[in-house]
Every structure is written in structure tokens, then in C-alpha cells.
């Protein structure tokens, strides 16, 4: 009559498709929510999953329903001291679950945001959707190629770590079967003969029987002597190297850590670079990042020091640009590498240095680069560096400069700098 079925092992993610569609449909709202969320985060946990909320009214599914007003009769339980004909002041919010009942979102959240749990992957996808490094050129065009190992069947020689065990043992079985076949055939014949003789009543110690038994033993020994595995059986997985176009790119991050950059501004700069760093790590497999921090002197540092060190001093911006130039010349040939740079500063510079910076950029650095982005973190008047850079921006299309006044600007500016250009 009744039939029990254990479905526990069936697929769990029946709703995955619908969930994806939901995300896709509300991508714009989610993106906005993700951008907001990123602004609110502390520097250390920017790349985690997150609960984001989108307004319920944006995703509501309309139906015809009654609005407020008119006459409605309701029955409620638990009367204590009401009498028929009593007048009661109208309670706030629609009379204890009157007509509004059931309209509130499931779980009674009502008009609140619809909360969405995004995994880290989904979060980053939305965060960096539609962004790319501008002017990236595939390296093959420049003439250098990378290689990738690709499987290419089997061969009989190779390194021991490439031995294909299954293939080799299959070969061994085939070899043993083939080489043992004549002996096995002989064994069968002898056994038949022996049986015939014994059936005729020939005695066990009859010379014919003894001879046959002797031969039988020898044949069996021959079979047993076949090696289980032979070098002849070994098969190796074969790999060939296929040339693969890759885009080798390097990003030079230049951050001003001078005394004029107070803690708040340093944080803004760090946020900007963290976004940049995450974006690069996520969207580009092989990218190198050079971190340069400077006050009066510039230093190349590692990621850890770049984001967390507290050293400080005066400001000479050209020191950083010089160092960047040296690093590039030494390690990153611009004919092989796509070179990018991002610089963050409050624009405060040693007075005569801004002109030096301008010339350095225009003459030495920009010709090597695909893209140079400068963000100035200042709520105040611009200083000499900004005006010096403005001259460059006028003359070079691959130079971009933006201004960040507060945390809310970071993500928009970031998106703006790296948004996908129409091809």
C-alpha cells in the first residue's frame, strides 16, 4: 500500500538554476548593494562573501489586492472584556493583523530589505563585473610565447613518474597470455592423454605416465617463469608542449605615505589598492604586482609591508617614479610585458618636484606603459602635482586621473578607471 523511497542521496541543488536566475535578474540592484558593502568593510576582510540587502519593493511580484479603506469585518479570538456595540479606537498599523496579514514577507520581515547571502565568488563576480585592464595586448603579438603541457597519448619510453599503471598492466596480461599459450595447450593435451591412460588401467608407475607427468611439470614451470611485468610492457603518458598565448602584465602600485597623508587618507589609499590587487588577482592569472611606497625616498616593498607598515616622512614624488622606472627597466621589458601603474597621493609634493614628475612621466614612463592611473585623495584644493599631471592627461590618452574625497568615492572611481572599454 505504502511505498518508501530514500531520496536523500538525490541532488540537493534543484533550486540552483532558479537562484542563478534571480541573481541575474537583479544584478543591477545587487551590484549597487555590493558596492555599498565594500565601502563599509574593513580593509582586512574585503574579499569575503557577504550578506547584502536589496529593497523588497524592487523584487516584489504584484497581484491585485485590496487596499486600505472601506468596511471590513474581522473575527478575532481571545475576547476578554469587549461587549457587543463597544467602540474601540483604531489600533496603529491595521488592527492586529487585519487586512495586511499575509502581505508581509515570509518570515515577517515586511518592508525590510530582502537579504541575500552571496558566496565569496559571487560577491567578487559582481564587484568586478565589466572591469578590465585597458589596452591589454596578447603577448603572442609581441613575439614571446608561453608553453603549456598537453596530453598526447602514450609512448614506450619516459620518466618513471609518467608510467601509466593500468596501461602497463594490461600489456603485461596480454604478453603473459600470449607467451604462455603454447604451454597451456600442451598441458591440456598431456592431461587428456594421462586421463586416457589411467582410464585404461595403466599403473601410476608406468614409464609412459611418468614421462607425461614429467613433461607436465616442465610446462607448468615454463608458465610460472613468465615475468609478471617486463620492461617491454611499460607505457608512459606522453605530453607535448603547445605554445600558448598569454598576456604577461605587471602593475606598479605607487603609494604616498608621507606625513601629510594622515591615517584616514592612508586608509583610503590602501582601500583603493586592495581593490585593485583583488581585481588583478581575480581576473588575471599571471600578473605581477610591484609595490612601491614613498615619502622623501621610495622603496620597493612586499605586499605585507605595503599595506601594513607605518613608516612616514616628507614628500618627494619623483623618487617613486624614478624607482618605478628603474624596476621596469631592470625586470620588465616593455616589449614582453604589459605595464600598468596606479599612483595614489594627496597631491602634496615638494614644490619644484611636480615639474620633475611631469617630465619623468611624459618622457620615460608613459612610453613604456599601457595605462597609468592617478588618484588624488584630497577633499581640499588641488596642489601643484594635480596641475602638473593635468598637462599630461591632455596629451596622453592612456593617462587617467581622478579624485577621491571620501570612502564613498573609492569604488565608483575604481570602476570608472577600469571599466571595460567598448571595443
Amino acid at each position, binding site marked *: 500500500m505504502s511505498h518508501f523511497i530514500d531520496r536523500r542521496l538525490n541532488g*540537493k541543488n534543484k533550486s540552483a538554476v532558479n537562484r542563478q*536566475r534571480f541573481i*541575474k*535578474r537583479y544584478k543591477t540592484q545587487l551590484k549597487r548593494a555590493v558596492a555599498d558593502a565594500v565601502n563599509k568593510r574593513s580593509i582586512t576582510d574585503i574579499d569575503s562573501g557577504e550578506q547584502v540587502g536589496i529593497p523588497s519593493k524592487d523584487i516584489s511580484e504584484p*497581484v491585485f489586492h485590496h*487596499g486600505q479603506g472601506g468596511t471590513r469585518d474581522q*473575527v478575532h*479570538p*481571545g475576547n476578554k472584556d469587549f461587549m457587543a456595540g463597544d467602540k474601540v479606537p483604531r489600533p496603529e498599523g491595521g488592527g492586529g493583523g487585519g487586512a495586511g496579514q499575509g502581505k508581509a514577507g515570509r518570515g515577517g520581515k515586511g518592508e525590510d530589505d530582502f537579504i541575500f547571502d552571496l558566496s565569496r565568488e559571487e560577491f567578487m563576480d559582481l564587484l568586478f563585473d565589466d572591469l578590465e585592464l585597458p589596452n591589454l595586448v596578447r603577448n603572442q603579438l609581441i613575439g614571446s610565447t608561453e608553453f603549456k603541457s598537453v596530453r598526447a597519448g602514450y609512448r614506450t619510453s619516459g620518466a618513471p613518474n609518467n608510467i601509466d599503471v593500468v596501461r602497463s598492466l594490461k600489456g603485461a596480461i596480454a604478453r603473459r597470455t600470449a607467451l604462455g599459450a603454447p604451454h597451456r595447450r600442451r598441458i591440456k593435451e598431456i592431461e587428456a592423454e594421462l586421463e586416457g591412460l589411467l582410464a585404461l588401467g595403466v599403473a601410476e608407475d608406468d614409464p609412459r605416465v611418468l614421462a607425461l607427468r614429467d613433461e607436465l611439470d616442465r610446462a607448468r614451470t615454463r608458465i610460472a617463469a613468465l615475468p609478471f611485468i617486463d620492461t617491454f610492457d611499460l607505457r608512459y603518458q606522453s605530453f607535448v608542449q603547445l605554445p600558448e598565448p598569454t598576456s604577461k602584465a605587471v602593475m606598479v602600485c605607487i603609494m604616498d605615505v608621507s606625513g601629510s597623508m594622515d591615517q584616514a587618507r592612508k586608509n583610503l589609499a590602501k582601500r583603493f589598492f586592495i581593490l585593485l590587487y583583488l581585481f588583478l588577482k581575480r581576473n588575471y592569472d599571471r600578473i605581477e604586482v610591484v609595490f612601491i611606497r614613498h615619502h622623501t625616498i621610495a622603496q620597493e616593498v612586499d605586499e605585507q609591508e605595503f599595506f601594513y607598515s607605518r613608516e612616514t616622512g616628507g614628500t618627494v614624488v619623483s623618487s617613486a617614479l624614478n624607482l618605478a622606472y628603474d624596476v621596469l627597466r631592470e625586470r620588465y621589458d616593455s616589449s614582453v610585458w604589459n605595464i600598468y601603474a596606479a599612483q595614489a597621493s594627496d597631491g602634496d609634493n615638494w614644490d619644484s618636484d611636480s615639474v620633475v614628475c611631469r617630465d619623468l612621466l611624459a618622457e620615460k614612463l608613459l612610453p613604456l606603459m599601457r595605462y597609468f592611473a592617478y588618484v588624488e585623495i584630497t577633499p581640499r584644493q588641488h596642489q601643484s602635482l594635480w596641475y602638473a599631471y593635468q598637462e599630461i592627461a591632455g596629451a596622453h590618452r592612456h593617462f587617467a586621473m581622478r579624485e577621491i574625497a571620501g570612502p564613498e568615492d573609492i569604488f565608483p572611481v575604481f570602476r570608472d578607471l577600469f571599466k571595460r572599454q567598448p571595443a
Partner: protein
Amino acid sequence: MSSRIISDSSEWTFPLLERFDREIGHLAHNVFGLDTYANQIEVIGSEQMIDAYSSVGLPINYNHWSFGKQFVSTEQTYRRGQMGLAYEIVINSDPCISYLMEENTLTMQALVIAHACYGHNSFFKGNYLFRTWTSADAIIDYLVFARKYIASCEERYGQAEVELLLDSCHALMNHGVDRYKRPSPITMAEEQRRQAERADYIQSQVNDLWRTIPSFGDDDAPDADARWPAEPQENLLYFIEKNAPLLEPWQREVVRIVRKVSQYFYPQRQTQVMNEGWATFWHYTLLNRLYEEGFVNDGFMLEFLQSHTGVVFQPNFDAPYYSGINPYALGFAMMGDIRRICESPTAEDREWFPDIAGGDWRKVLDFAMRNFKDESFIAQYLSPKLIRDLHLFAVRDDDRAEAIEITAIHEERGYRTVRQALAEQYNLGSREPNIQVFNVDRRGDRSLTLRHYRHNRRPLGESVDEMLRHIRRLWGFTVRLEGVDDNGRVQLLGEL
């Protein structure tokens, strides 16, 4: 005696479940005379339960973002522990599919088996609404067909296109129900064959309807301004499916699928109190009987009763977590009350229910289950005693008055008013706005006029504009919504 106890552990195993099912089934069929479909009991995990939730409880459904939204919100509230999952989902199909959740204890599984596999199941099989409106043996097949069909539409016409159409259809889902005509059950193969036929046929009919070439000897000319359709139509989706001028055949079929699914759920929306009350009454009765016969021990009963009382708890109107009348509580109380009226009627009961007082409670309950829906069930069977027990009172909220008025309480002169008001509260016809197709301007701009017939001066909510957009998307030409008040005055509510 103790040797009869099925198990004293709270861990369930398949053999134990089968044992429980056998005993409960035996009681249900042979002792209490319940008539059920065969049961298909599926054990699933909690994630699968959330999946099942989000496709509105159907085991298979087409893909749509709104189900994803449901899934996300269910998953959220469940993860945060704001909501326990229902212990069971049961599907009105033949065989009747019920889901048991892996995480539950043996007691809870037994409770669910009694509740869903014998309670709901017999209700699905017996109640006239389900018998009339749903075809239990065809629904799974139909859903398989619907899913495939919509997937193939997505392939051919693009997911975005299909999604827009489904959005609009979903918006009108509650107005996609035939209230008077009986749909005939058909199998998937037949549905597919007919679907192709229908597509061709409908398209030719629609074209005919909109034919603009004048025919000679036209007798219709004089009544060019007669309304069409002659009678107002309440099934908006059906009307659109058959008559919308611009829909492609596949679009009509999609409208039809949504309409069919809506029709399938229509009885459930009308029998919430009865259906849950019936199932709750039976799990209570069946498990108590198991206890009396010594199949389960005291621990089992305590766990069961704790869960049962939680389900049938009715907070008072002034409690902070009050959210209307709990259908489980009301239904269970009414079913139990009917049994009481049969078994030990008072003088009052004999006066109010002369035909059932002192009768065979099994027959009376069976009759009630088969022939009523919430509205009529309450109007027929809500007894004065129950009104007193629940301290029910009726309130009138008239926006023209300063204060709300208590119109009746649990006293002699109030019983009928309370009963009437409560029954009305479950009348789908007055709970949902009454919107009908009033006119189509066939000769002119092809505009569609809908009318909202107001009941007790209750206006439509703020969704009108959005709804008009959806209807316009389906109809393809101007859509107008008029409101008709209690005095018959007509007023334009919106036009798009």
C-alpha cells in the same frame, strides 16, 4: 503488553517507518474507514526540503526567478533559525507523495505519516473541490510536460522573453481560475498532441475574431457597439489565452500552463482550515489510538503532544505574535467539536445541530469533509460552544467611522453574526478583489476594459499601475481598469 511497543528509541529506520505506516494504515483504513490514495513516502534532507518549498511544494516545476527568490528567502530564514521547516510537504497526486525530513525523530515521522499520508491524503481524495478541480493522477505528468515545454520555449525564443511572459502570467495567477467549468483530466502524451492542435486552431480563431475584411450581408452591423464578451469573464488568463490578439501560439500555451497550475492550487486555497483541521484531527486520533493499543510508550506520546499543542496553539488577538486565526487550531477544534456533538450532545447542540447531534461521528465527519469548503464548513458547523471556547468576537472597521466597532461577541445574540463574519473571512470571492473582463473594443482600438466590482467599498491596493503593465504586455493594446462601487457608479482607475 509492553511487547507490542514498536520502538522506544527516537532514531528512525526504514523498517520502523514501515512498521508505523502499517499500524497507522491499518487503523485508518479498517478502524476509522478513511479512503486514501496509495502513499509514496520519500525521505529527504533539509536542503531538499527547502528546494521543495521553493517550487511551491511541487516535486517538479518549470524554472523561474521567483522560485529562486523563494528559495533564497526560505534558506535565509532557516539558516538564521527564525523558522523551522515544516515537518512535511504532501502533494495532491495519485499516488500521494509525502516528504519526510531526515532530521526528524521517529515520533515526528510517525506524526507526519498519520497527518500527511492518511489525513491530507484522504482529504485530497474525498473533498469535492479536489475531486472537481484537480486530477491527482495527471498532475505530475502535466508538470513534466510544462517544464519541458517552457524549457523548449526558452531555447527557441530566449529566456528573457519567456521570463517576461511568465512574470505577467504569475501576476494574474489568482485570476486564472475557472470557478464553474470542470476541467477534464488528461495525460501528458495527450496534452502534447492536443497542444499542437490547439496552437493551430486558436491562432486561426483569434485571427477570425479580429478579421477586418467586411463580409457581405453583414447582419451584425447594427449592434456594432454591443459589448463583447456579452457576459463579463472572471477568468482573465483564460480570456487572454483565447482572445489576446497578438500572442504567439507558444505564448498562449505558456499562459495556459500558468492557468492550469493556478487551477490546481485553487482548492487548496479554499480549504486551508478544513484540510489542516482534518489532517490534524486524524493524526491526533490515530496516534492516541496507537497509544491505547500499546504500540507506543509514554515518551512517544509526550513528544507527540508537545509538538501537537505547538501546532494547534492559538494566540489571543492582543498577543504580540498574533497574526490572525491559526487554521490548524480552528480546523482541529471544529473537527473535534463535531465529534463531541455526535458523541455527547448538549441541549444547545440538539437545538443548533438537530441533524447530527447524537449521530455516528465518523459518518458526519466524512460527510463534512467531502462536501464543504472553508466558508461553508464554518457557516455550517461552527458551534456556539466553540465560539465561547475561543472567545471569538467580530469587529467592523469602517474607514468612515472614528473608531472600530465590536459587532458581536460570544453570547446568545452574537453567535450567528460571529459565525457569518468568520465564514465570510474565508470566502475567496470577497478576500480577493473581484475583477472581470467587461468589454473589448473589437471595431475600434482593440482596447480591453476590466472592471473591479467593489465590495464594502474596499478599494484596490497600490499595485494597480504595475498590474496594468502586466496585462497590457499580454493583451498588446490599451488596457483600462474601471471601478464599480456598491451603487453601480463607474470610475476609471487606470489606463495604459
